[in-house]
Structures are given as C-alpha cells and as structure tokens.
C-alpha cells in the first residue's frame, strides 16, 4: 500500500483495528438473527461518528476533517472486509456529497454538522424500478404555493427506513427517460404523506420502499437547481459508486483471503487442496482480478479528490470492475469451501448475499459497461 499520507495510514489502521474488534462478521449475523429493522447497530454508528469517519468528506467549517474521498474509501474498504452494516456510505459519503456539491449555505449549515457528528442518518432515494436508471425518474414534484408536493414511489433505498433526511430525485418537468427536468429535494424522514416499508433483503441491511402521497416541501428544500438536477445527481452518484466499489473491494479481498486460508488448511487426498494446480490457477486469476479492480477504485477516488475531468468514466470503471470481481470471488468462495460453504453457519453465504445487493446498487456491471462505452463514444 502506498501513495497514502500519514493521516490516511492512521485512518486505515484505526479502521482495521476497529472492525476486527467491534465489527467482525459475527456482528452482521447478530443483527440479522435479532431481526434488526434498520439493519445497523446504533452504538457502532455512534462510534464511527466519534472516530471522525462521518466527517471525512465534510469541510472543517461544518465539523468535518475534509480528508477526502480516498480516505473515506480506505475506511469503507475495511468495513467491507467484515460486511459491517452501517449508514456510513449513505450518510457520510452520499448525502454529505450531495449537500457539499449542491447545497446552499443554509442547507449545509443545517445538515452537514449533524452528519459529521453522526447525529442523523441520511439516504438517497433515486430508483423506482428493479434496474438502476436515474433518468427514468417519474416521481412527480408539482409546484404548490411557494413549495412543491411530491407524489410517487421509490424503491431499494439504502437506509431508507432509518433515514432522518432523504435526498429525493423527482421530476419537475419532462418525461421519464429524459435527463432534463429532474430536481433533487431534501425531505425529512418524518414528513407527512411519506410511508416507508422495510425491505428484507438477502444482505440483511437496512433498505426500504418509499411511497410519497402529497408530501409537501418548501422551496428551500430544493437541492441545486430546479429541472437541472440530473448532473448533480450523477455527480453524487459517481461518488456513491466509487465509495461502494471501495467497500466491495474490501469485501472481495476478505472473501478471497478467507478462501485462501481454507485452501491452505483443508486437506483431501492427503494434501492441502491449495496444492491442486487447477485451484491454484483459479486463485491466481482471482488475485489478478482483485488487484486490477483495486487500481480502478483507487484511481476513481483519487480523481474525485483531484476534481479531474474523467470522474464519470472512472466511477463506472470502478463500479463495473468491483461488481465483476466480487461476483467471481463470492461464487468461488462458496465453491472452494465445498459443502461447508453452503451452510448458513459459514460466512461464505453472507459474502455471497451482500455481493449481489452491492452489485445491483447504483448500477450493475452491465449498466456501467454501457455507460462507459457511451462516454468513450462508441
């Protein structure tokens, strides 16, 4: 590891120590078996706030450290290793980015310090269909008096049940499928007319479907510009994709290392199964994929920090490679563990289940390949 400054090395090491101690895979299993509604442990979330993780991309003026996305990525990579369930990505990366990038001074003042202090949970409500497609947004925002009323539905909203603040993509003009005519709104979780239904996903984390029926918001709830929200949304989503990809690389790395340990220790036919060349080559190929995907994730995060002009392409690259890599590694984890990997008592199933949810979130590999090709002009 390198290219990291001292703060980053400290952050990463602290994150590693914390997840090993406070948030091993058993913590997720416990949340699941206890039937947690929100899908995360409030105490762990508070500790994340105390360690400053929630303020890593927030300016100092609003209570953050502004270490940047690469730094937050290091933390997410570590939490991804142990499948740590928390609102870190939704709140401290996605919502914080949206406010940073699109918020007025008043909006920032109102929300960023609370995020930095882990006082609130926030989430992004974008998709309305089984497949990610921001331009397809139909949820209607109709002008009413000085404000707007929102009517429609969102699905698959990460932390949607627990969120105190929702950033909602809505259509103020145009037709579903068009990029123009979108507007982002800040909506409080407790808003009248908003009904939230918990989704029990295979990864046991917090997610919800949201129904908006005449939800009224003032003009000040608009984040960014009316009708011109698509660019801001994509810019926020690219940060979400890169951050999620960082988490996924952590997940893939741990899944691989756990499998590698098993290959070294499980014996069959008088040898460690890791001595069989076919498994060795598959392991070497997985390692190759992981290292290649890792490079993409770091490059995307660095590009965001540098405000480079290829963030769009690099975010799609990072997410697509993270998807393909985690898909491969999570399948191989089960297969190489054999029968034991099929049991609920083993962690392999938890990695597999988290993998598919993360693959679908904010665009599948297929979706990002299409976007990448379009960005490259073919």
């Amino acid at each position, binding site marked *: 590891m390198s290219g990291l400054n001292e703060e980053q090395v400290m952050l990463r090491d602290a994150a590693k120590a914390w997840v090993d101690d406070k948030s091993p895979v058993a913590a997720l299993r416990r949340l699941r078996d206890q039937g947690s509604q929100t899908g995360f442990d409030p105490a762990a979330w508070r500790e994340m706030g105390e360690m400053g993780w929630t303020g890593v991309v927030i300016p100092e003026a609003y209570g953050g450290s502004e270490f940047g996305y690469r730094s937050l990525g290091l933390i997410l990579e570590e939490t991804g290793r142990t499948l740590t369930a928390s609102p870190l990505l939704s709140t401290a990366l996605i919502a914080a980015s949206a406010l940073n990038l699109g918020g007025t001074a008043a909006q920032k003042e109102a929300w960023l310090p609370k995020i930095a202090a882990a006082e609130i949970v926030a989430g992004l409500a974008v998709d309305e269909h089984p497949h990610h497609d921001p331009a397809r947004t139909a949820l209607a925002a109709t002008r009413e008096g000085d404000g707007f009323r929102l009517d429609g539905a969102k699905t698959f909203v990460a932390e949607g049940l627990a969120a105190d603040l929702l950033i909602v993509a809505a259509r103020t003009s145009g037709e579903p499928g068009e990029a123009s005519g979108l507007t982002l709104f800040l909506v409080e979780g407790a808003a009248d007319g908003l009904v939230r239904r918990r989704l029990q996903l295979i990864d046991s984390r917090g997610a919800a479907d949201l129904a908006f029926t005449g939800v009224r918001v003032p003009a000040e709830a608009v984040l960014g510009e009316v009708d011109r929200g698509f660019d801001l949304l994509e810019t926020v989503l690219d940060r979400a994709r890169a951050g999620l990809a960082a988490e996924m690389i952590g997940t893939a790395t741990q899944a691989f290392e756990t499998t590698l340990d098993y290959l070294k220790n499980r014996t069959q036919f008088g040898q460690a199964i890791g001595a069989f060349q076919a498994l060795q080559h598959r392991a070497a190929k997985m390692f190759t994929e992981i290292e290649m995907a890792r490079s993409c994730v770091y490059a995307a995060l660095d590009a965001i920090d540098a405000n480079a002009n290829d963030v769009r392409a690099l975010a799609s690259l990072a997410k697509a490679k993270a998807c393909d890599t985690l898909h491969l590694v999570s399948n191989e984890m089960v297969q190489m563990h054999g029968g034991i990997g099929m049991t*609920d008592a083993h962690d392999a*199933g938890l990695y597999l289940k988290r993998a598919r949810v993360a693959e679908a979130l904010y665009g599948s590999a297929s979706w990002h*390949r299409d976007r990448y090709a379009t960005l490259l002009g073919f």
Partner: protein
Amino acid sequence: MADLETFRAEVRDWLAANYPASLNAPMSEDEAPWGGRKMVWKNPDAKLWLERMGARGWTAPTWPKDYGGGGLSAEEARVLSQELARIHARPALMSFGIWMLGPVLLEYATEDQKRRFLPPIVRGEIRWCQGYSEPGAGSDLASLQTRAEDRGDHFLINGQKVWTSYADQADWIFCLVRTDTTKKHEGISFVLFDMTSPGVEARPIKLISGSSPFCETFFDNVKVPKDQLVGKLNGGWEIAKRLLQYERQNISAGGFGGGAGLELEEVAKGYVGLRAGKLADADLRARIAAHKMDAKAFALTVRRAETESKAAKGPSPAVSIIKYAAASLNQAKHELMLEAMGTKGLGWDGEGFAPEEIRETRAWLRSKGNSIEGGTSEVNLNVIAKRVLGLLDHQ
C-alpha cells in the same frame, strides 16, 4: 411389438381406472411423495396412488417380482413411463431406496437381504438415507473415519456423517464405515441400519438458502447386527462407487430443478423491458442468448447421449460431461435470472417481493450446491480428463 402395444393398452386402462383425479392439480414442494414411516400425506389420494403402484411393483418397474418389483422388461418399463408422462401423472414415490440402494442390493446383497429390504422400498414403507460424507471426507470420500468395531454378533458404530440428505426424515440408513484402520479403500464396509437405533442422532443443517435438506448425523455406540452388512467385510468401497454411479445417473437424468419454473427470457422481458423488440439491456440480452444456446446444446446433448448409448449398448462419451455441464448451466441460469430481476431478485422475505420472486432467489442460492453435491465439478473434470481423455495422474 404387438405384445408391447397390448401392454400399452393394459397400462392405459389401468391408469384410467387407478390414477386419482385429485392428483391432476400441480404438486407443491411439501407434497413430494418420499414415503416412509414419518410421511404426512396432505392428500390421501397420493397415498392411495402409492399403494396402487406399489402393489403392482410399478414404483420399481424392472426389479424382479420376487422382491416386490414390477418384473417388466426395459421396453415395457419405457412404455409405462411414456404412459405416465402422457397423463402427466405425479410420481407415486420418490426414493433413494429405488434410485440408489435397490440397484446395489440387487447386485451385492444376499438372497435374505433382498427379500427383507427390497419389498418395503418398492411399497414406499421405508425411507432410506445415505451415510457417505464426513466432515473430513468430502471429495476424498475414502478417507472416512466412522468406525465399526467387530463385537461378535454385531458391529459397534461410532463416528459422524455430514450432508446426510433428509436423515431426520429417513427410517433407515445405508452407511459406509471403517472396519479396518490400516488400509484406506480396502478398510471400508457397507452396512444398513435403522435410524431409530439407540445412539443415532440427526441434526438438520441450515443452508444459505434457508432450507435444511441435509443433516449432520452422529453415531454413538450404535449396535448393528452383522446380517446387515452388505457384501464382504472391507469390501464396501466397490459397492460405494457403484452406488455413486446410480446417484450421478439420477442427478444427470433429472438435471437440476428448483426455482419458480420461469423462463429466463420471459423474466428478463418483464423486469428489463423491450426496446424495438429487443431486451432493453443489450449486454444482458447477449448473455442471455448465449446461455439459452448453451441450455439448448445441453438438452440436445442429453438426448444424443441417450440415443448413442442405446445404439452402442454402452455409455456415449457425451455422458461423462453431463453432470458437470448440468451444474454449470443451472448456476448460470439462476445468476442470469437474478440479474434480470434486478432489485426484485434480492429479497429474502416479507413485503415488497412476490412469492415467486422469493422462490427464485432461494433457488439461486440453492443452485450453488449443484457443483458440490454428488461429486464436485472439480472431481468431475478430473474424471473426464483421466477416464475419458486418458490423461495421466500427476506423479
């Protein structure tokens, strides 16, 4: 041929008279007719159907009548199976006893053993489970450690099995035990015993899909009378391997089922949508097309292998690839299904997901076992390389 057509007419008449009309409804998963002492019949007609078929021996149509079987020729059995398929009859009995144990008993058991054990299998009165794998003996089955000590008139069995399918539902077990610790393959014996024997305990294993079709099975000083040894002492490995052949044939012939029975491209059309007549996700469309081609190629290969095996009176080389290909394809299908369903394929339970969506998600998880159970894909590839292609073992 005239005789066969006479037989076909008889079968038709008999089915018309004996197949219960109430069984024309689709069979749900919990109605699977596994038989045995613990079977709870949701529909009494299903029990009746088993009794009628069992009485004629048609649950095991080619077994000798002496042992309760149907005594049919291979041609007659095919006619029976065609006629059953014609009326979409439910299976009268699903049974490891018929698929796996019976064939090896017919080959290796004593006359007394055949008369004792085969008829209750045919009639579905005794349900069997398979005591093969152990925690340390998966692909390397012969390294098993469950001990059977010779105590004069009986064996005393101690040890642990794992992946025992439905051990908690079974009445008896056919079990591999170590009767000689100084040899590997030549120290294994094949024994049968009652799961209600003192010292037997079966604990269901919960799988990643949430279901528990397998158990850990523990043996603590279980007494097994010596007349329940099949074949020779320390001669069980040969029987074990023969039985595995029957098991693989059975898996191969049936392929891997499960899931909500939906067609992949229909699911994709529903969840992804069409644009100008083509799936809106062109990348996914290309991969689904490739998969549909592979699935068709597989179906054609199964059919070709059957035809060629029949013509050559021996297995076609294509047979060897079937278990491996079936597992790969079923897994690929479920991955594509999940991908096509998008976020609707990611539900575990509760509101927000249709029952068939949840069923498909569980089936996807279940399919991960296809390349592990009944011989891992790695072992299958080894077998193709060595036995079919004649490549050497690594020295």
